[in-house]
Structures are given as C-alpha cells and as structure tokens.
C-alpha cells in the first residue's frame, strides 16, 4: 500500500530539496543583517568533512558527529566574522569568497586526513542508521508494507523535514523578535543603528555565525545523505548556486529562500531536456532579475497582495 506510493527517487529529491533550503537559509540570515557571505560553501565543507571524518574514523553516532560538524562551522564563523566587521558590502562578499576558496584548497592539500581530491568514501548514511535503530527497536519496515530502501529514504526525509521545520521556526521567530529588528536596522543603515545604541558587533557576528552554523549543519547532513564527498562539492560554483536560491526566491523574506531552493532543486529534474543549458539560463535569469526585480520573486508586496490586502499609500 504505502510501498507503491513512496518512490525512493522522489524521496531522494525531497531530501536534496530540504538540504538546499537549509543552505539558502544560511545565506539569508547574514543577508538580513546586510552581510553578503559567499563563503557558505566553505562552511558547508567544514561541517561535511568534520562529521564524515568523525563518523568514519571514530565511529561515533551520527547525531553527535553532525552536531559537532555544525558547531565547528559555527565557531569558525565567529572567528571569521569578527575581523570581517570592518568590511561592508562587496568587500565582505569578496573576502568570504576568498575564505571559501582557501578552505577548499586546504581540503585538497590536507591529503592525509581528507584524502584530497579523491574524496571520502564510505560515509555512513543517515537513513540507513535510522533503519538500524528502528530494527533494533523491533520495528520492521515490512510491517508498514515498505521495502528496506523505501524506509531508509522515508526516514531520512522525515528527519530532514523535522530539522528544516525547526530551523524555519527559529529563523522566523528570530526575525520578528528584537534580534530580527536589530538585523533589519543594521541592514538598512549601520551608522544609524549604531547611534541608536544597537551593539552592531554583537548582532553582525551573531548573524554571520548563525549562517555558518546552518551551512555546516546542511553540509554534515549532505555528507550523510550522499555517502561520498570531495573538495569539488564545496567550490565557488556551489557558493554561487546557494546564493541564487535566496536571490532568485526572494532575499527579503524567509519564505523566499524556501521557494528559491525548492524551485531550483526541482528544475534539473523536471527540465532534463533543457538541463544542458541550466547554467546558461541561471546566468540570464540573474541578470534579468537584478535589472527588473532585484529583491527576488517573492517580496513583501507580493505576499500581501496574495493575501488580498491592499498596499495603502500612507492614508488609511
């Protein structure tokens, strides 16, 4: 019964969509405080390699390795974030880009540990360890009418869904809180915010570190979903891809990042015939978007209009 409906292919794609939503969020949070970070691929790599290596060499349970990976990425985010306070706008973007590339070269050359470009194989897969946990608890997939690999991907997808939901809840709550308002004011005008008594240092580093943590978390989950990573997975191309999720979907709203990640992850699957030209289309799309609608597809006006409210122009 369930067995026919749940195709591991769809579930696999769903898993990647969820991971990409996380990555989009990792760009969104710093961006909401006015910081464009192109280093998300680097933090993703830190999370991925840390978690994978801990799991392979020390055989620690995955929930520990993933957490450690994300935390390490977050800590590096703080370390990188503090000196970056002096930089604004494009300067910050380029510095973070440089950082991401340094990390990648570092992974390539630290061959003893990361095995360089050959990559790390045999990374324990999260879904499969969930299956083992279930079996140990006496649950058999067959009882639900599922095959083993369907259960694996279903469990993985559900876990990712939970994690993403928690993240989204957190980010949205934060946006509507004092912290979120501090971010927004810093984004609009740093000097004004500072003169209003907002501790810019604290908030900027907070946003940056949060972004790094989320990227690291996504990276670790990515490693344990796909089972094999290499430095090429965390290149400049990846950073640009992640950036596009948020920029395309809508950089003002959290839902924009979600939207962007969903559509752009599905695109290669739906548009296989046009998949060849995918990046060419992305390039053209970015140019058109920036010229015509730089805030991305979804923005506040659109959302309000969709909810049927009218945008008043000052008078009731």
């Amino acid at each position, binding site marked *: 019964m369930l067995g026919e409906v749940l195709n591991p292919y769809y579930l696999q794609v769903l898993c990647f969509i969820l991971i990409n939503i996380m990555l989009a969020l990792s760009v969104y949070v710093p961006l909401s405080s006015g910081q464009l970070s192109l280093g998300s691929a680097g933090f993703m790599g830190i999370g991925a390699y840390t978690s994978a290596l801990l799991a392979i060499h020390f055989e620690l349970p995955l929930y520990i390795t993933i957490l450690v990976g994300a935390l390490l990425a977050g800590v590096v985010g703080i370390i990188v974030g503090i000196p970056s306070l002096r930089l604004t706008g494009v300067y910050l973007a*380029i510095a973070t880009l440089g950082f991401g590339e340094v990390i990648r070269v570092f992974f390539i050359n630290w061959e003893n540990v990361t095995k360089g470009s050959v990559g790390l194989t045999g990374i324990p897969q999260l879904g499969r360890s969930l299956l083992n946990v279930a079996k140990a608890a006496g649950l058999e997939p067959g009882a639900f009418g599922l095959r083993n690999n369907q259960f694996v991907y279903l469990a993985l997808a559900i876990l990712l869904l939970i994690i993403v939901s928690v993240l989204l809840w957190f980010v949205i709550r934060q946006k509507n809180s004092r912290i979120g308002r501090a971010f927004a004011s810093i984004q609009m005008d740093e000097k004004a915010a500072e003169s209003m008594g907002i501790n810019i240092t604290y908030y900027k580093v907070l946003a940056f570190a949060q972004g790094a943590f989320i990227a690291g978390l996504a990276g670790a989950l990515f490693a344990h979903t796909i089972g094999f990573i290499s430095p090429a997975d965390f290149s400049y191309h990846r950073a640009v891809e992640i950036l596009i999720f948020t920029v395309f979907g809508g950089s003002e709203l959290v839902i924009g990042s979600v939207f962007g990640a969903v559509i752009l992850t599905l695109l290669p699957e739906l548009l296989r015939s046009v998949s060849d030209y995918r*990046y060419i289309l992305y390039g053209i799309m970015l140019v058109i978007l920036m010229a015509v609608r730089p805030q991305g597809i979804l923005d506040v006006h659109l959302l309000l209009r969709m909810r049927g409210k009218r945008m008043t122009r000052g008078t009731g």
Partner: protein
Amino acid sequence: MLIEQLINGVTLGSIYAIVALGFTLVFGVLGIINMAHGEIFMVGAFIGVLTTSVLGWPLWLAFLASIVVTAILGYFLEVFSLRPLRGKKGVSHLAPLISTIGVSIFLENLSHHLFGAGNKPFRAEFAEIRFEIGSVTIYLVQITIFVISVILMIGLSIWLSKTKAGKALRATAENIETASILGVDTKKIITLTVMIASGMGGIAGILVGMAFNSVSPQMGLSMGLKGLAIIILGGMGSVKGAVVGGLILGLSETFLVAYGDSGYRDAIAFIMIILILLIRPQGIFGSKAAEGR
C-alpha cells in the same frame, strides 16, 4: 633556475596586471566589481584560437578581432547588466555584483557548449621565437607581454590624466551627477570605459594563448578571482596598483611553486585578499575614500 623562475614570474605577473587593469578601470568609474571580467578575458583568448587555428588569420588580425569582440561584449555588459541598475532607488549595492556574476556564469557555460571543455591549442610562429642566454631560455613572447603591460599602464595613465576623455572619465568617477551637470556625457563615458576594460581583457586573453599555448573555458574563473585579489592588493581604482599588484602576485605564485608546495598556489591569491582587506583595505596605492563604499 632563479633567473628562469624570475622570468616566469614576471611574465605571469604582467598578464595578471593587464587583467587587473580592466578590473580597476571599471571599479574606479562605476564602483562595481565586474565578476564577468575573467570570462571576457577567456572569450578573448578563444577568439584568438579561433582566428588563428581555424580561420588561419595572421596574428595581428587575431589581436584586433579579439579586442573588437571583447569590447562589444563589454558594451552589451554595460547596456544590459549594469545600466538598468544605475540610478534606481532602493537597489542594494549588491545587485550589480550579482548581475555580473550572472553574466559570468552565462559566458562560462556558453563557451563550454560552443568550444567543449578541454584545452585548445594555440599555434603561432611568433610564439616559437626564443633567445638562449647561457643556460637560460627567454621567449620573445615573454618579453612582449611584459612590454605590453608596461605600455598599457603608461598609456592608460597618460590617457586618464592628459586627454579630455580621460579627464571626463575621472570626473565621472568622482561624482556622476556633477560630471553630467558639467557637460560630460556620462552615459557614453561609462560605456566607453567598460568597453576599454573589456578590450584589455581580450588582449590579456590572446597573450595568454600565445604564451602558454592553451586556452580552456575554465581559465576565466581562476583569472577572475586572481584579478580581484590583485586590485584589492594594489588598491581598487589605481592603475599603478593594478600593475604592481599583478607583478607581486605573479612572482609570489611562481616562487611558491619553485621553492615550496605547488598545491597551495591558488591559495595565495585568496589569503592575500583576506589579509589585505583586514589590514589595509584600501590596498597599497588606494585612497582612504575607497573604504567608505
């Protein structure tokens, strides 16, 4: 070996310098980092390959073709990607950056499609001429590259400071509105600037093809990132800085390979970016004003 590596470093550095000149010109006038510059450089190199290997044109004609095509690309870049963003209220300062990233992705993948992924050979008799001084071999191409980069630097400086167009450009760089009130056709100047910058990218591209015998669609990305590092090191908007920065980067990369671990070669540029931005964001020759942007 030291002399040879020195020559290698200066040649590489000169090419980096020419690429950086293009970057610095656009940044100086528009305050925009053109992430597509590296790809324009790559297109210039491919035009060189196409005209010499496929069409069999002589070298000087290939040069001309390369400059023309890249200048036209620059024109399109300005009109479609940069101009719509100017003067719009509420557009974040990041929009031009992202737009040029879009152009760079577009160009990189377009050339993958048109030219395939691999290196293409570049044949030119000029590239074969060499001199032997003792145990050291110097190629005429290497000397030419260095000379061209110096000429371009001097030429650009003179143009900027002495000619009417150059002064108009500097005025526009200072303040677009004031310049336009004073009668400068800012739109034309800006377009001209981007075209010149792109043309220089084309020159660098074809020089690379000649010097190293190979062009590949991947060369744009790494050159673009290195070019960024150079203008940050030398000071964004500074012509002198671009050349000095380029030479410094070329020499450090070469010496790292010669005496250290060649695996970390690319990391130098990026580490440099980070360090400079933290210690002295305006670069060696940059002015403090640049920091404010």
